[in-house]
């Protein structure tokens, strides 16, 4: 059933992320220092609960089953800080003694659940990934069976089990274990399914080990981190279940101190205003469950090595920057430039800048290529132009002047009017840029109507015309399509149609053809450049492929560690590179194609 399937998929994704990062073992001190103070408090609380569970009865001020008939239902006072119950037993003493019962039952029951669920999960995962059809059927059948088991009312099921076998801690343990084992079966199964795709699993099988053996020996240990997170959560749930069973008299019965039974005995007094008998056990119960649940998160967090830090950058000294780029940075904005970026610096708060002092001018109709190694800041630059930085990144300095307006300072409303109307983004992997649940036509119509007054019908007709203009036949069919029905090339063409529909003066493109088939890449690029020429749109084109720059751009800027280290006409930069990074980029590219294209590239003269 896809209800549980979705859950499994999600777990699988999350867990493989944990496993992927599990290899780095941090030290204990490192672990502690990575925790927030909230997490540390929970950790301390967790240890405290374990201590109370272990030694509670020894430290209680009164014997937890000692009834004093003269002291019945005494409200909290000096001698009994939490009052006494209807038998005259000190509530505090019972509270200290009770967690032992609940926690012990929950821990043992959860251990049994894991002991049963995990091996079955390995077998299920093994069968499901098997080549033989019959095996997959067995696995599928097991899962549907589990759906049914899990469809039974957990609480009543546990009660029935206790009813069959009689009350008492052992039977509660068995009932709670039975109710929870499918959770671990599912979890381990989905873990095994994703882990067996790893090369080391394939290698172990290739070495002649049996698949099932590999599952237990190599894959199961790697699934433990995820299982451990779930164990913590399940223990909390098991504590609640135990308390609930005892509350209705189907679990642990008095005089054994137990939180659910304590609440039950206090329930009738709560209603008439004597609150202390039932209130405190509930609070403690909540605290225990909460602590275990948060411990799950903490365990998960600890098993991921330190948060990714943005690699620190030594500021490059200015002499490393080629003179032409320096000159442009210092110069005032060129006359008639459509876009003029000056000293733009972007940082993640508290970290070294990701972009530093980036400056360039863009003339109308000009195409500026931005190249650089991965991580040099190309994508950030493209997004920073229209302030699409997302959370965590902010501008530290600099200006982005577009047609006389500083986009960096513009208010949200005016910026929104420029975005999508005068400046259009073309972003990588077009398919992921389109909302999977919005039809292509709805997006285009919303975009057209966001910037020009027209009816839905007119906007729709315009969208269809635009698709036709860029060579997409059967426009109506594609307008009614959802993004998943589009190929990557088709999705990028749709984005191109969106980019051109308002005939914008500026297009900012970030790797617009990445992920596309080589032949499709060419078609899309040719189309994009041709249409930009027709409409006179200027373009900033970030790419890692020098071949594209050599063929299509007028000028090129080389970005390295957040700085523009070299800038000039395509011909100058590519044929006589001055900066080491440029030389490295050229060396990595297909040299002949680049130089041939650069030699014939005369576009810089046309514009300037």
């Amino acid at each position, binding site marked *: 059933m896809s*209800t549980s399937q979705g859950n499994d998929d999600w777990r699988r994704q999350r867990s493989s992320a944990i496993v992927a990062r599990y290899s780095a073992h941090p030290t204990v001190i490192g672990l502690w220092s990575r925790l927030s103070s909230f997490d540390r408090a929970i950790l301390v609380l967790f240890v405290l609960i374990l201590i109370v569970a272990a030694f509670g009865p020894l430290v209680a001020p009164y014997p937890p089953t000692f009834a004093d008939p003269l002291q019945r239902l005494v409200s909290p006072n000096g001698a009994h800080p939490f009052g006494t119950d209807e038998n005259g037993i000190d509530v505090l003493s019972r509270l200290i003694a009770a967690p032992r019962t609940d926690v012990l039952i929950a821990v043992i029951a959860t251990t049994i659940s894991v002991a049963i669920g995990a091996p079955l999960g390995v077998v299920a995962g093994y069968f499901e990934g098997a080549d033989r059809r019959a095996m997959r059927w067995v696995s599928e059948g097991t899962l549907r069976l589990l759906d*049914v088991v899990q469809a*039974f009312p957990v609480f009543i099921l546990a009660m029935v089990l206790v009813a069959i076998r009689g009350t008492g801690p052992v039977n509660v343990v068995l009932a709670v274990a039975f109710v929870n084992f499918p959770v671990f079966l599912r979890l381990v199964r989905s873990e095994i399914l994703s882990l067996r795709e790893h090369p080391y699993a394939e290698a172990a099988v290739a070495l002649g080990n049996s698949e099932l053996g590999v599952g237990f020996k190599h894959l199961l240990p790697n699934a433990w981190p995820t299982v451990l997170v779930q164990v913590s959560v399940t223990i909390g749930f098991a504590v609640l279940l135990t308390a609930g069973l005892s509350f209705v008299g189907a679990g642990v019965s008095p005089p054994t101190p137990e939180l*659910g039974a304590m609440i039950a005995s206090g*329930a009738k007094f709560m209603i008439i205003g004597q*609150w202390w008998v039932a209130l405190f056990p509930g609070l403690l119960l909540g605290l225990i*469950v909460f602590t275990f649940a948060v411990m799950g998160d903490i365990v998960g967090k600890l098993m991921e090595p330190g948060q990714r830090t943005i690699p620190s950058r030594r500021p490059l000294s200015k002499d490393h920057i080629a003179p032409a780029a320096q000159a442009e940075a210092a110069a005032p904005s060129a006359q008639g430039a459509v876009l003029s970026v000056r000293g733009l610096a972007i940082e993640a708060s508290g970290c070294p800048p990701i972009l530093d002092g980036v400056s360039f001018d863009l003339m109308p109709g000009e195409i500026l290529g931005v190249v650089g190694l991965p991580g040099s800041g190309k994508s950030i630059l493209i*997004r920073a132009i229209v302030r699409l930085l997302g959370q965590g990144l902010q501008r530290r300095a600099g200006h982005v002047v577009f047609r006389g307006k500083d986009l960096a300072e513009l208010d949200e409303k005016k910026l929104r009017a420029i975005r999508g109307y005068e400046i259009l983004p073309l972003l990588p992997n077009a398919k992921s840029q389109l909302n999977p*649940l919005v039809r292509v036509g709805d997006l285009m119509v919303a975009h057209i109507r966001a910037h020009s007054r027209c009816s839905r019908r007119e906007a729709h007709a315009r969208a269809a015309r635009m698709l036709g203009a860029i060579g997409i036949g059967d426009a109506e069919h594609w307008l009614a399509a959802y993004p998943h029905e589009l190929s990557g090339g088709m999705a990028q063409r749709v984005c191109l149609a969106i980019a051109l529909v308002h005939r914008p003066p500026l297009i900012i493109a970030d790797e617009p053809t990445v992920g596309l088939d080589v032949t499709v890449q060419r078609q899309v690029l040719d189309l994009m450049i041709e249409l930009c020429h027709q409409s006179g749109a200027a373009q900033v084109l970030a790419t890692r492929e020098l071949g594209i720059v050599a063929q299509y751009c007028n000028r090129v800027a080389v970005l390295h560690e957040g700085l523009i280290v070299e800038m000039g006409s395509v011909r100058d930069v590519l044929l006589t590179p001055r900066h080491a990074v440029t030389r490295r980029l050229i060396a990595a590219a297909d040299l002949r194609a680049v130089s041939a294209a650069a030699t014939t590239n005369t576009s810089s003269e046309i514009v300037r």
Partner: protein
Amino acid sequence: MPTLKYIGRRLLVLVPQLFLISIITFTLVRMLPGDPARLELGPLAPEEGVVLLRHQLRLDEPLPQQYIAYLQRLLQGDFGRSWVNSSSVAQDLLVRAPATLELITAGMLIVLVVMVPVALLSASPSRGWLARATRRISFGYGLLAGALPDFWLGLVLIFFFFSVLGWAPGPEGRLAILDLPPERVTGFYVVDTLLAGNFDSFRSALSHLALPAITLAFVYGGPIFKMVRASMEAALRSDYTIYAEGLGLPRRTILLWAMRNAAPPAVVVTGVVAGYLLGGAVLIETVFNLNGIGQYAVQSITTADYAPIQGFVLVAAVFTMMVYLIVDLLQFMIDPRISARIT
């Protein structure tokens, strides 16, 4: 029609699942100690009567035949008889079901009307006071939800709102003791009293429903709340939202579209929670004395009255499977990718 095909296939899965449920409930009761015929008639009944009933129930035949007989009785709507008050279990369940369904419906309504909007607001990165306030609420609620036992929270609410403040009625059931139940139309007292035009009874029914429904919403709304917030946050951080911002689309459109993306996972979790509630809210019913089918089952267990337990377990499991079915169909309708993948 791919949609019809999918529904057909999905229903096909349901058939063996329902069979399995009946097998399990059958086995459960066979495992319970005691002779059902003897239990139904009571310890004082003459032996001949017990033998006769055993024959009528076909308990003297081998297990497979017994199972078939059990299935036949189920299909005729015969869930057996309670030996405590010798009433028909099917009848008992029918009379009590509306109380449980009313509680679940009211609780889920609170979740959808109050909690989901708060979750959506708290997911928005806006710096306005409303977003900040909801973020704080959602942080605090995220800590508490799922940790507090429902039966205890119900008691605490009774203590504050009944014993201390006197705003709400005590745990006396669905109506005040002197109120007459309205004529049964839907079985929901809140609806039936309105239909009957009896506003005093309506107020009474509503005030008796308020605390249990709030308890249910608070305790079981947690997973829904967290999932709505998490998937809305994910949608607002996603590439397509950034692209939509880059196209200068109105804020309202962007938020509405992000909500569309947040919907499928939220629907799944809502379904799982709703499916769980029929059997999961039994303690709330017990604490507030609502006399629904959950409380009926709990009472039956304490009196070792097996037919009602069997009936309840069966009804709850079937209910859960039905909710799962509805969730799958809903998802199929919301998310075009699923229909593409499955058909």
